[in-house]
């Protein structure tokens, strides 16, 4: 079973990575993550917003209300400088973890 810490780390990395390409509102963010991970990572409303608000409090992302073409007001999230700074070590950590697990899996198969 994947622990809460690992799950949270994966989710935060996913959000920061997707927002690196540009600002998105919550629904679109969840859709983009699902598409880019081919359905491996899915965010429900209940999982997404507490995490977005927490990341906002930490100063990694910033939300602001914007009016779209259809006149609908949406809260768009964008990456802050602190978020960009956070992304790089987070990626490194996950890459190291992934490599370590792959090595472990290969050893187990051998």
């Amino acid at each position: 079973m994947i622990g809460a810490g690992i799950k949270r780390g994966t989710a935060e990395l996913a959000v920061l990575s997707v927002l690196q390409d540009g600002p998105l509102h919550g629904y679109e963010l969840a859709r983009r993550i699902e598409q880019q991970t081919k359905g491996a990572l899915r965010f429900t409303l209940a999982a997404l917003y507490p995490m977005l608000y927490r990341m906002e409090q930490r100063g990694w992302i910033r939300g602001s209300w914007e009016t779209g073409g259809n006149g609908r007001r949406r809260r768009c999230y964008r990456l802050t400088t602190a978020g960009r700074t956070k992304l790089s070590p987070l990626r490194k950590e996950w890459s190291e973890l992934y490599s370590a697990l792959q090595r472990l899996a290969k050893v187990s198969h051998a």
Partner: protein
Amino acid sequence: MRDWEAVVEQHLSGLALEPAERSEVITELAQHLAETCEQCRKQGMTEEEAARRALSQVEDWHKLSRLIQIARKKENSMTNRVKQFWLPSLLTLFLSMGLLMLIQLFGPSPLKVAMKNGWSLIAPTAVIYLPWLFSLPVIGAMGAYLSNRAGGSKRAMLSSIIFPVVPYAVFFFLALPAIAIFNERLGHNFMFIALFVGLLAWVVAPAAALLTGGVLVQHFVSRRLELGRITGN
């Protein structure tokens, strides 16, 4: 078309944030639900199916409310703990102790439950203030309501409900045995049956009375949330 803001507003009725901030959260979540619903409709679902699919994203609205509150609050988690546990706990403790004092001073004589030796009562004797016991469910309900309103977890709510009996429990479980050990006279005359009767009268019965009111409130709140989820209101 469904009024998603009203749906979210109803489900997150316990969300304790500043009004403007609360309204922003409700609008944002409502838009997410509306867009999920629209997407499902595009895939050919009926309005009802799409709404059900959208709402299925949240299994426990009370938990979501608590998580949002923790995430959005500018104050630290210590402040949340104060609102969710310490404030309701101290209120239930203060009210129950205050009421007991008033009843002892001005109320009817307590019920004395004991064995009789002729006309006189012999130990173990339980002194029970019935008006106090009957008022405890209301106090427990108030504690549960306050903790729930501040987004407290079930554990915080239950702990704050039974908080008033903690001093008595400490007395019976720690202070009394300690006194019996160090006080030779009490040690020789110590009656376990008296300890048991005292525990029943001052810990078990008040805790049960407090929990009756508190659990009823908890049950009512859960039912309201569940009903809201089923009807989608």
